[in-house]
């Protein structure tokens, strides 16, 4: 464990605190993890969006039941669950066309994003070729 801060002498302070712990019969905590200061990896928008469209293309599938409210919120959850359980057949009927539409949106996006990837690769190839040509001309 490290302590940070310009106001403290880390080793002295840590030593003093550890001594107090030892006096109380306490040792190091084996479960303590070191903190992370690393950044998160980027998320590729094309593949993320495609995956999200696939996940949500079927509007007849319910989302997990959740509420941020206490009290009445729990009762509303119960009512939603009862509605889902008893009326799924009507939900399917009402959303059949939406399901088809969403499927087309997903497929169109898949085709368009694939095309974007192909074009990016093509642009990169052309740029590399052009740079190489310029370098040869110079010299």
């Amino acid at each position, binding site marked *: 464990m490290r302590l940070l801060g310009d106001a403290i002498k880390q080793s002295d302070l840590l030593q003093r605190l550890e001594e107090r712990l030892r006096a109380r019969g306490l040792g190091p905590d084996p479960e303590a993890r070191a903190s992370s200061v690393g950044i998160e990896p980027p998320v590729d928008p094309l593949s993320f969006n495609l995956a999200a469209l696939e996940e949500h293309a079927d509007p007849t599938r319910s989302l997990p039941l959740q509420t*941020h409210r206490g009290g009445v919120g729990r009762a509303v959850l119960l009512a939603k669950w009862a509605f889902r359980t008893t009326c799924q057949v009507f939900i399917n009927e009402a959303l059949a066309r939406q399901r088809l539409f969403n499927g087309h949106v997903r497929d169109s996006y898949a085709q368009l994003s694939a095309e974007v990837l192909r074009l990016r690769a093509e642009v990169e190839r052309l740029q590399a070729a052009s740079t190489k040509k310029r370098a040869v001309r110079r010299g």
Partner: protein
Amino acid sequence: MAVHQLVPSLLPGDAMGQAAIHFQLLLRRLGHFGELYAEELAPGFSSLVKPARELRPAKDDLVLYHHGISSPLSGALLHLRCRRGIIYHNITPARFYEGTPLWESLMSGRAQLTAMAPFMDLSIGVSRFNSEELRSTGHRNVHTVPLFVEPRRFGADRADPRMLAKLSDPAPALLCVGRVVPHKRVEDVLSLHAELLRLRPTARLWIVGSYAPGNAYVRKVFRLAKRLANVEFFGRMSHAQLVAAYRAASILISMSEHEGFGLPLLEAMASELPVLAYAAAAVPETLGGGGIGFTEKRYALLAELVDELHRNPKLREAVHRTQTRRLSQLSADAAARRLEQALATPDRPRKTLRRRAGKPRVAIVVQRFGEVIGGAEAHARSIARRLSRDFQITVLTTCAKDHLTWTNEFAPGKTRIDGIPVIRFPTERARTMRSFNRLSRQLFQRSNDRLHEEHWVAEQGPAAPALLEYLSTEAKNYEGFIFFTYLYSTTVWGCPLVADRAIVVPTAHDEAPLRFDLYTDVFEHARVLFCNTPEEAQLVRRRFAKHAPIRVVGVGVDRATADPARFRRKYGIDRPYLMYVGRMEAGKGIPELVKAHRRLLRAEKEAPLLVLAGSSAAKIEGPGVRYLGVISDGDKADGLAGALAAVIPSRYESLSLLALEAFAQRTPILANAESDVLCGQVTRSGAGASYEDFESYQGGIRKIAAERGPMARRALSYARQHTWPRVISAYRQEMRKIVEDQR
């Protein structure tokens, strides 16, 4: 070029909205006009923020979009035909929210961050940590502009006294500020508290921040908290309550596993509260050597550290010193310098002043101008007329005639008044007095954050964004600016755009808005302040520690030829009278004056008549009280010359032109003693009396009646000290210094 800001939501207590308000301040100080646009805004805030769908930037404008969690605005931004920028506040890693609907919003926000990269002209991280993430997602032209707090807003005097009294106790108190959500790891704070209770059974833990009672995580945290003593969840607090919590606590604790900046750490530093924080994500950078960071959550050891920090004054003092240093490194000025660098692009040279031959160009900025009733407005007109001999004056004002509603009554565009060019800009919204007064009552009773004060200014008006945009874009064509009246948006939002070239005539008096910290933008940043009286100057010195240089300048008064007999004949007045001329408003103390005078009439048969003149929504009449309506300048001079005394009932005066005009007619004044300025005029002139209740009102009239002759001589002698040549010479001198500095 305008720099607009686009935020997903602008709600009180929302960190991103608060950041947008702070960036607005920086942008103004850098001379950029811009408006705020939001997808979701709090009810009643439409005066301050416009709906995102109304954003129509010009090709040259820059739109800065604040990005956090997924928002449809990120897509809309890509289709705006203007320069685009992002201010990145970071996104909580989705792993903390697996299995919840938030997971997808967090992932989507990250996908949007990458998707925006090729379309951005400028990318700003509010920490180096965030900037690194921007670069890793393909953003170029990345700059770091850290968030900041305004330390004075966290002073001991800003704490809610009731909350402070409730919380004050010698036992150690841990404070955790932040929403009760999984990545903030409130359960870890509870674990630390459990360990601390073993050492100090009276220790307390306060958790300040919003929570959703039905949320599974919140219910888990509540269950854990129930097993421990002295844990209190306060939910969201007002600014004043939050300052009380910071001021009453012993230590701020943060166990958060992810912070893109960690504003509460700075707020605690500004509140002189030691900070103990888990060194995750941007936290070590924000601490920057201040406070104490820790890299492992060893609760027993941390409890010992809390105990040490609570009991060891030397350690607390050392920590405090490092925090003060860190706070000064993360100041608004430092952030403004960083933002200036970020906005400077090679193809956009800095705005430079256009030099012209002939008289220097000076703009006078005032909320209303022309045929309007108002002391400051009349003052501005007198100065404009007299300065036009030495400077090329242009008046920038609104189309409003009525300062209560700001309704557009004059035509927009260019016109000439007294031979001076005037440019009028339309107001965008009328003021609703009922809601404005309600808001004022709420905010005047407590200390506030900048968002609420900016909201109050927006409600107060006049809302004339075109005037502010003109100031920003045309500033290069003027060598100096004179702003009248500190109170209105034209000054508080206009002055920072050109502060180094601005003389401000604040016309300040001791009123509630003067206590708003937002007015430091005027009083501490203007080039020079021209106060009307020594009392006003003293008030400004007391209120603003780092005020701009002050000169007491005031106004001049011309002695008009007067014929009291003509006035008496015209209005059929055949007995001694007291006279008031001005706006008949409650704020001017008219109801109290009429009440006191009626009581005087009941007590004394020979009491003088009370003559009132000026614009009024209601007719004020009754035995012993005459209301004349609006009267001409000639009638005013005649009336004042014949009056026993001019009565000035207002509590809030920065000068009182009426007093000077009365003195010029050899007439003493009877003034409200609650106004330091009026009392000062009475004392310095020796020509009048002041009153604070009925007895002193009655006594004042008797005193004036008894000493009317000597007082008349002293009044005239005092008026002769207030001449226009002396006043104009001060303006000329200061404005020439401003002009010289630029040449």
